[in-house]
């Protein structure tokens, strides 16, 4: 056993000395490899943690949302709908929601204006999300004016800024009183953006939804389970960026493996011959090469994964921000709660470490089984 360990250490000594001969090239390879792992691991950790966060946070979303569609567009709920819903069995609570978008030309940002159902906001005051406050440089007590869609200027005082910790759901929110909302957006009393329903028995939800679409053929119900499902599958592998990244990584790896597979130069073949001539077995040569692949890929995996962890959970995935931001000005500052899927990590490990180790071994195999006597002749 001791001799076995000692032997592996010798093989590692040799393989490292060999690698050190082309230091720049091999360090470059390691760097590229690490970068690939870093990217893949970052995407993996980020998307998983985000999905988990969504699942955890959005369980509080309304059970059913009823939206009216007019000519393929979401339209206001006219008066009378709320009352008619009251006749559907199983509906425990119903409430008209008022919300909408506002484009702020000052900082070119989009806000979500919303009337909170549970709290009263004094007229002329606003509660704003921390992201929005940051974009406009607002503090409590500040005055802010918006030009409404009708052209009138409205001024508000900032009453409170929503907690910084909750930016992931509230960064762009502007909470406003119902009266202010209606006059700002010129929405007549009795009209609502949509209707939120709660259903007493969770098993009834689908029934209620079916009844709703039957009773309001111009409307569509959106169930909480659908909201959750939407975020469950957000950024899955099939989606644009993940697919693009994955194919990029696979391409890079293919180039890599090709370099390895075809890179067995005459010099390397000769070296293998020498090793065999001086008493190395075919197996020793293969083990030596295995160590090369294993050490390089293990180093790349460990460093890449570590960097990805720090990036996603300690540095707020800052490299993804420009991608996720798009044209938007407002981007939430959020720190994901680190939920790591061990199975995913294992998969990543498997798919980054093993193919590389294999790619280094295959070409060597052919050279290593050759007769060693060729080295006797120059």
């Amino acid at each position, binding site marked *: 056993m001791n001799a076995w360990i000692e032997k592996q*250490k*010798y093989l590692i000594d040799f393989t490292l000395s060999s690698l050190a*001969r082309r230091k720049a090239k091999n360090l470059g390879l390691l760097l590229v490899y690490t970068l690939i792992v870093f990217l893949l691991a970052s995407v993996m950790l980020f998307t998983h943690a985000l999905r988990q966060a969504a699942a955890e946070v959005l369980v509080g979303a309304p059970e059913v949302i009823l939206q009216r569609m007019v000519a393929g567009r979401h339209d206001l709920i006219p008066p009378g709908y709320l009352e008619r819903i009251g006749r559907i069995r199983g509906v425990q609570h119903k409430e008209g929601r008022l919300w909408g978008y506002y484009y702020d030309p000052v900082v070119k940002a989009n806000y979500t204006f919303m009337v909170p159902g549970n709290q009263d906001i004094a007229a002329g005051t606003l509660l704003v999300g921390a992201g929005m406050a940051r974009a406009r440089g607002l503090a409590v007590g500040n005055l802010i004016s918006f030009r409404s869609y009708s052209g009138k200027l409205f001024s508000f005082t900032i009453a409170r800024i929503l907690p910084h910790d909750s930016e992931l759901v509230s960064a762009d929110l502007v909470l406003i009183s119902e009266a202010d909302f209606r006059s700002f957006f010129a929405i007549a009393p009795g009209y609502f953006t949509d209707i939120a329903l709660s259903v007493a028995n969770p098993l009834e939800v689908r029934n209620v939804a079916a009844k709703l679409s039957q009773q309001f053929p111009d409307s569509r119900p959106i169930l909480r389970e659908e909201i959750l499902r939407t975020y469950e599958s957000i950024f899955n592998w099939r989606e644009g960026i993940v697919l693009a990244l994955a194919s990029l990584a696979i391409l890079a790896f293919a180039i890599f493996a090709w370099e390895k597979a075809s890179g067995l130069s005459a010099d390397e073949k000769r070296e293998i011959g*020498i090793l065999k*001539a*001086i008493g190395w077995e075919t197996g*020793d040569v293969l083990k030596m090469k295995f160590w090369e692949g294993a050490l390089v890929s293990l180093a790349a995996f460990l460093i890449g994964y570590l960097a990805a962890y720090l990036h996603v959970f300690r540095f707020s995935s800052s490299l993804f921000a420009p991608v996720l931001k798009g044209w938007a000005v407002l981007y939430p500052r959020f720190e994901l709660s680190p939920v790591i899927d061990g199975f995913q990590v294992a998969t990543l490990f498997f798919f980054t470490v093993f193919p590389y180790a294999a790619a280094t071994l295959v070409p060597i195999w052919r050279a290593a089984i050759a007769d060693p*006597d060729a*080295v*006797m002749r120059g």
Partner: protein
Amino acid sequence: MIELKGIHKAFNTGRENEFHALNGIDLHLPTQRVTAFRGPSGSGKTTLLSIIGCLSRPTSGRVRLGERDISGLPERFLTHIRRQTFGFIFQQFNLIKGLSALENVMLPAYPLGGNWRALHERAESLLGDLRLAHRRAAAIEHLSGGEQQRVAIARALINDPQIIIADEPTANLDTGLAMEFMAILENLHAVGKTVILTSHDPLVVDATIVHQVIDMRDGRIVTPVPIAEGCA
């Protein structure tokens, strides 16, 4: 003791360029002797050495090493025998570029997995014996031809083999270095090693420490005869 019986070696058998490098070699090499093979280029000396050293297998014929018939052994066993019994000094030295002199010397011992410290010391003392201690950390390509050969000798000795095989050891050396090599050979013989070498160099084959010179031609052994007659 090494015994060869009816050794044939053919290359590219069955193809157009089939070539018989050895045509029936019968030979008995005693231990603790210095034996030299001599012969014109292409006479099969290198081929014979590689068969003796278990680097390749004869097409037919039997090789006995001590009490053991090794012709039929699988590759694994041949490697074991090679590593325990033989030390090779190649004509082109065949050192591994980019590694230090010391690492090159240690290489044949790596698969044995012995104690590193002990191996390190042994390699250093071998290099010291060959007056190379000061160059041990130098990369092999920075050494002169003579230094490289001494590294190759140290490497051949690291596993303390019984039999040293040297193919044209002086071909790349000037007279001074060749003389030095003969002195090293003498030491090896003095500690009881068997040495088998090939050479055309009169400095080698005429040296007093060479006990036996075997002439070869066209893959056959020409009965040892005085040089004058052999040339006629």
